[in-house]
């Protein structure tokens, strides 16, 4: 690592700091929820290391606690994390020329939070293209370390948090914080309402099929509304939609 690379790495880590402030309670709540759902502490920490995707981990923790079938866990994870394909598509042009080991590492670190600061850096154009991936790495590692440490803290505190605190409500309320500001045009509002109503109506379907039906219905309505109310900005990435 030369001096410029180190500087880029540190700049990325620094840019990630404001987001880390919001991640601290989120990670702690995840750790607490996971152990109270009956997941052994070691496995709860493994979830943060191996899956490394907050929202999917929250949902998986709830589902695993009630003995949900394997395949349902996998498909649910796929649907919940499908949005990362959007980030992958958006960053691909910047990382495709990197060696494979770099692409593997950066893909592992591609969270909503790391994406949010990295895409701004890549599209900002004030840095040299040759060392930008060090910025991405710095942002990604900063988030990774925060997520692991706060998960561990949550696991340690978890058993001491009484159920009457309703900490499980932190999940929907965090998602509200992420999704509401992103509802900036009619197609997005339509997609959200359709998916929400479908999820209610189809809630009793087995195997999380309700979630799948809701996601599909929401996407279709969003696309349909777009035909009548074209989105002005070109097909790019909704940066406001960043969360865990």
């Amino acid at each position, binding site marked *: 690592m030369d001096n410029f690379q180190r500087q880029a790495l540190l700049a990325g880590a620094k840019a990630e700091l404001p987001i880390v*402030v*919001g991640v601290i309670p989120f990670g702690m709540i995840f750790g607490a929820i996971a152990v109270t759902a009956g997941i*052994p502490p*070691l*496995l709860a920490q493994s979830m943060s290391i191996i*899956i490394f995707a907050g*929202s*999917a981990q929250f*949902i*998986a923790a709830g589902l*695993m606690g009630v003995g949900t079938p*394997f395949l349902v866990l996998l498909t649910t*994870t*796929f649907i*919940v*994390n*499908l*949005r990362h*394909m*959007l*980030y*992958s*598509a958006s*960053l*691909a042009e910047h990382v495709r020329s990197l060696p494979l080991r770099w*692409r593997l590492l*950066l*893909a592992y670190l*591609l969270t909503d939070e790391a994406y949010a600061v990295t895409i701004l850096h890549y599209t900002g154009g004030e840095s040299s293209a040759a060392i930008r991936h060090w910025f991405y790495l710095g942002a990604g590692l900063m988030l990774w370390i925060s997520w692991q440490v706060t998960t561990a803290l949550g696991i340690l505190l978890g058993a001491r948090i009484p159920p009457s605190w*309703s900490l499980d*409500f*932190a999940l*929907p*309320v*965090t*998602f*509200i*914080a*992420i*999704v*509401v*500001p*992103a509802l900036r045009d009619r197609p997005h509002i339509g*997609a*959200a309402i359709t*998916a*929400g109503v479908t*999820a*209610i109506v189809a*809630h009793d379907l087995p195997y999380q099929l*309700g*979630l799948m039906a809701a*996601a599909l219905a*929401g*996407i279709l309505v*969003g*696309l349909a509304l*777009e035909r009548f109310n074209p989105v002005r900005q070109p097909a790019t990435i909704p940066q406001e*939609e960043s*969360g865990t």
Partner: protein
Amino acid sequence: MININPETLTMALAILGMGLITFSIRLSLFLLPESVTLAPWMLRALRYVPAAVLSAIIMPELLLPGGSLDMSLSNERLLAGVMAAVVAWRTRNILLTVGVGLGLLWILQALL
């Protein structure tokens, strides 16, 4: 000693599987050659994924507490969620939204 029972093993396998799926999604477009890009309709469809999926998770949590539909004013989660949504709309501040939502739920639960 780590005591490995079948339930723990199943969980461990599930975690590995979920990790593999998440990693594959993130890696997917990083591996494509430069000449290949996603079709425009796919990119458009992907744009609605976060709003659709997150709403599908939020709404049952607010409207189906305990498993049955409750749209009354005694549904604390619904009230706290709506208030959190207002805060999110106005401030776009994640921390503040979470704080108001959770805080209000605790107050309502203490009162109702």
